[in-house]
C-alpha cells in the first residue's frame, strides 16, 4: 500500500511528496524500513528498492512482518540532478532530526524521522557522489559499533567501516535514529548518477538475508553472504591529490594493492606531462577510488584499508 507521508505545496501547481510503500503479511510484528534518495545524485538505492519491492510482492507469502520502502526522501533533488535539497542550498543529511516549526525541508526531515522511529531496522542506502567510486560498504559510528556490526555483517557487503564520532555527523538521519534507539545502517556503494547492477543485486540479497535473520522473511538464501572486512580504528590511508590536474587510473575498488604499487597518475594535458604518480603507501584493501578525473590539490583519489601482519595472509577477512 502506497502511503504519502509528506505533502507540501510548491509555488506553482505542484505538491512536494514523500511516499512509501508498505508491504505487510503474516503475524510477525517487526517493521523493517529501506530508505534512500536523501542525496539526489545517488541512484543505486533506486534499483535496490525496486528489487526488494518486486521480490516481496511476487512472494508475499514468504513475508512475516512489515517492510516499508521509501525510495525518495529528496524527490526534487533526484528529479533535478541535485545532490542537495533544491532551493535551500542544504545537504538534507545535515538537518536531521529536523524541526516541526522550521523551513519546508526541516519540517520534511522531522516528519521522515518521526515516521521511521520505532522501526526494528532502517537500512539507509547511499551511493557515493559523482566524484568517488565505493565498494559496497556499511558505515557505522564507533558509538554504535557493538550494537550494529552484527547486523551489518548480514548485508552481503565487502567492507564495514567503523568510523570516529564527528559532531557534524550528529545531524544525519542515521545518527538521529540510532541515538534515539531505532537501529539504522548506512550503506554506501557505487558512484553517483549511475547504477551498478551487480552491486545492487548483491545488496538486495543482503537485505533479504537480514530480513531472514530477523525473522521477517521465510525464503531460502540464494548464496552465503560475503564475509566483510571490518575496519576499526585508525587504519585507513587517504590519498589526496598532490597537484591539480587530470587523474588517470585503471584501478577498481574492492582490490588488494601492494605497498608501492602505482594507483594512477595526475597529468597535465596542456604540457603533456605527468605531474605526479599516485602510489599506494601500504599493503591493503582499496575500497574507494576517484571516478571524476579532474582534481584540485587535496582532492581525494583513493582510500585504502591498511592490512596488519595477520591480515596479510587473510586479506583482512575473518576466515
Amino acid at each position: 500500500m502506497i502511503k504519502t507521508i509528506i505533502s507540501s505545496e510548491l509555488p506553482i501547481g505542484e505538491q512536494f511528496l514523500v511516499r512509501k510503500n508498505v508491504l505487510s503479511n503474516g503475524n510477525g510484528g517487526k517493521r523493517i524500513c529501506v530508505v534512500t534518495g536523501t542525496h539526489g545524485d545517488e541512484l543505486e538505492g533506486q534499483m535496490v528498492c525496486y528489487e526488494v519491492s518486486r521480490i516481496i510482492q511476487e512472494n508475499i507469502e514468504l513475508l512475516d512482518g512489515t517492510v516499508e520502502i521509501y525510495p525518495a526522501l529528496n524527490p526534487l533533488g533526484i528529479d533535478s540532478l541535485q545532490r542537495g535539497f533544491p532551493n535551500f542550498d542544504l545537504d538534507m543529511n545535515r538537518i536531521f532530526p529536523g524541526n516541526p516549526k522550521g523551513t519546508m525541508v526541516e519540517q520534511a526531515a522531522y516528519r521522515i524521522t518521526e515516521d521511521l522511529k520505532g522501526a526494528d531496522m532502517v537500512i539507509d542506502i547511499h551511493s557515493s557522489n559523482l566524484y568517488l567510486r565505493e565498494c559496497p560498504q556499511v558505515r557505522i559510528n564507533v558509538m554504535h559499533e557493538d550494537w550494529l556490526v552484527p547486523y551489518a555483517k548480514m548485508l552481503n557487503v565487502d567492507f564495514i567501516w567503523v568510523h570516529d564520532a564527528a559532531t557534524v555527523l550528529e545531524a544525519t538521519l542515521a545518527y538521529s535514529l540510532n541515538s534515539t534507539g531505532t537501529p539504522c545502517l548506512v550503506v554506501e556503494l557505487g558512484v553517483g548518477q549511475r547504477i551498478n547492477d551487480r552491486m545492487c543485486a548483491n545488496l538486495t540479497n543482503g537485505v533479504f538475508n537480514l530480513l531472514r535473520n530477523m525473522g521477517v522473511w521465510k525464503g531460502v538464501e540464494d548464496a552465503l553472504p560475503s564475509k566483510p572486512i571490518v575496519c576499526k580504528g585508525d587504519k585507513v590511508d587517504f590519498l589526496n591529490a598532490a597537484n591539480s590536474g587530470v587523474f588517470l587510473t585503471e584501478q577498481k575498488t574492492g582490490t588488494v594493492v601492494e605497498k608501492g604499487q602505482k594507483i594512477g597518475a595526475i597529468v597535465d594535458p596542456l604540457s603533456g606531462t605527468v605531474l605526479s604518480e599516485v602510489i599506494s603507501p601500504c599493503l591493503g584493501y582499496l575500497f574507494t577510488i576517484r571516478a571524476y578525473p579532474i582534481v584540485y590539490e587535496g582532492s581525494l583519489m583513493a582510500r585504502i584499508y591498511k592490512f596488519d601482519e595477520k591480515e596479510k595472509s587473510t586479506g583482512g577477512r575473518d576466515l
Partner: protein
Amino acid sequence: MIRETLYTMKSLHRDDFKIEGFRFGSGEKTMAIVGSMRGDEIQQLYICSQMVAQLKELESQGDLDPNKSILIIPSCNPYSMNVSKRFWAMDNTDINRMFPGYDQGETTQRIAAAIFKQLEGYQYGAQMASSYIPGSYVPHVRMLKTGYENIEAAKMFGFPYISVSTPAPFDTALLNYNWQVWGTSAFSIYAGQTNNIDKKNALLTQQCFIRFLKRIGVIRKPVKNVGYDSLLLDEDNLVRISAKKAGLFTAQYGAGDYVDEGATIAIITDPNDGSVLEEVKATTSGYIFFAYNKPLVFQHSLIFTII
C-alpha cells in the same frame, strides 16, 4: 598597508587560485575582518573593499596605531565568485563548513586550514556572513552560544542588534565557532543583503567597524558617529512567521520596518489566476528582523521574523 597573497593553489586550466589579504600596522594581532567566503557574498566583498580603502586613507594620515595589526581578507573564494557559484564550484562544498580545516585533507579543507592559520591569534575577528535562507536582515552582529561569546565586545560596534543563537551540529565547522573556541572574540556580521550591493546598509556597517576600531584603540583620531545602544536578542525568542500557502510572494514590509500586530505584511497569490491565497499577518507588533525576498515561496517557508 601591505597587500599580500595569503594562499595560492594551481588549477588545471584556470589562472591560479589566490586569496589576497591587506595588512595594516604590525605587532599585536588586534583584529581580522573576513569578507566573502561564498561566491554570492557580494555585499560582504564590497564592505571589505571599502574598509580597505578607508583604512588606507586613515593610515596615510597617521591616524592608525602602527603597533596594532589589522588583517582584511575581502574574498576567500574568488574562484566561485568568478563563475557565480555559491560554493566551491568543483564539488559544491562550503569553505565555511570546513573549519578549522586540515592541510592534508580535501581541497576546501586545505583552503579553510590556510585561512584559519592566517586568522588564528587575533584578539577580535569579524566575518561578513550570509544565511542559507534567502532574504534580507536588519544589520546586526551574530554570535553562536559556545560559552566563549563576548557580548560586551560586540556592543562596541554599535549595531542596532546583537543576536545569539544555539549552534546546530553542522555549525561546529563554521569559522565563527572555531574562532571562538580558539580564543578570538568572533563576530558574524550581517549587513542586510547577500547577492547585491546595498549601499545604505554597507555604509552603516562600515561606520560600525570604524566605531569598533576606535574603541579598541586602532584608530587614533576622534570618530564622529555615536552608534546604537545594541539590543541583545536570542534568536530562539524571535517571532517566526511561515507561509501557510505556496505561490507568488510580494512583501509589503521589509527588514527594519515596524509593523503593528494584525497588519498585512505580505501577500501570496496564485501563480496562474492571481487570486489571493494568503494575506500574511503580523502576529505581533515590532520590528522586522528578517524578511524573505524571493518572488516564489514554498509552503512552510520562513518568511519573516519579528523582534
